[in-house]
């Protein structure tokens, strides 16, 4: 595992693009076994892929996840259809009591105008089986 403590933070993921259209909203509707047409507040799930990629990049075993908390702030209504740009940053890392403590921030913007639609924060704790 690489040494997070020596990293210069924030560490940014690549910018990823996600299309949000009626078809995708319908697929969420199906997954929730619901006939709600509203966009799920958890649409910020797109940010999580970036987060786990950062973890993989640094060889942290996320299957040892002990705790996660998530928050989303909604700045503007999501236009449908739209192309979204998602970028995640690791903003804080601590290692204590054989656990990795990590904080991430993500921003979801429109691709075209770069308008901020959703900002997300995630705090996670992952067990370090090496016991270091």
């Amino acid at each position, binding site marked *: 595992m690489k040494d997070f403590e020596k990293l210069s933070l924030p560490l940014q993921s690549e910018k990823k693009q996600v299309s949000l259209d009626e078809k995708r909203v319908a697929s*969420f509707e199906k997954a*929730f*076994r619901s006939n*709600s047409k509203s966009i799920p507040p*958890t649409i910020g*799930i797109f940010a999580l892929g970036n987060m786990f990629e950062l973890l993989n990049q640094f060889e942290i075993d996320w299957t040892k996840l002990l705790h*996660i908390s*998530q928050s989303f702030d*909604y700045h503007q209504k999501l236009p449908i259809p739209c192309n979204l740009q998602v970028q995640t940053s690791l903003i804080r890392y601590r290692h204590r009591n054989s656990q990795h403590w990590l904080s991430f921030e993500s921003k979801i913007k429109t691709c075209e105008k770069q308008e901020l639609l959703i900002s997300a924060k995630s705090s996670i704790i992952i067990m370090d089986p090496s016991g270091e």
Partner: protein
Amino acid sequence: MTTHKDKIPFEAITREQVRDYAEASGDHNPIHLDPEFAKKAGLPDVIAHGMLSMGLAGLALEKWGYSMERLRHFESKFKEKVFIGDELFAEHLDEASVKLSDTKQIKVSWHLIKADATEVLTAEALFDL
């Protein structure tokens, strides 16, 4: 202020539902889809996405009559893993008016629990008035 809202039951979580959520979200993490992978990670079976549980919690807000158009903030803390076959319920805990600078908002607190009352997640949301 506590406003009574009925407890909302959801259908028991199925493998198909978890696969559907993986398709919708793009999160194909094997811990949600591959039982063998889950067992190697020390789990008895795959677990549902945390964001699926959080999404169900969001759906409860809508069922209780809150306008998702006015949602400004949504946060949750995950307390327990959700497995295939788990039945989940959303239980409204509190509603209060709050004032942040010049904006009046409603703060809603609720949680998602299993049939045996194990707490899956706690959540808070802020809505513009």
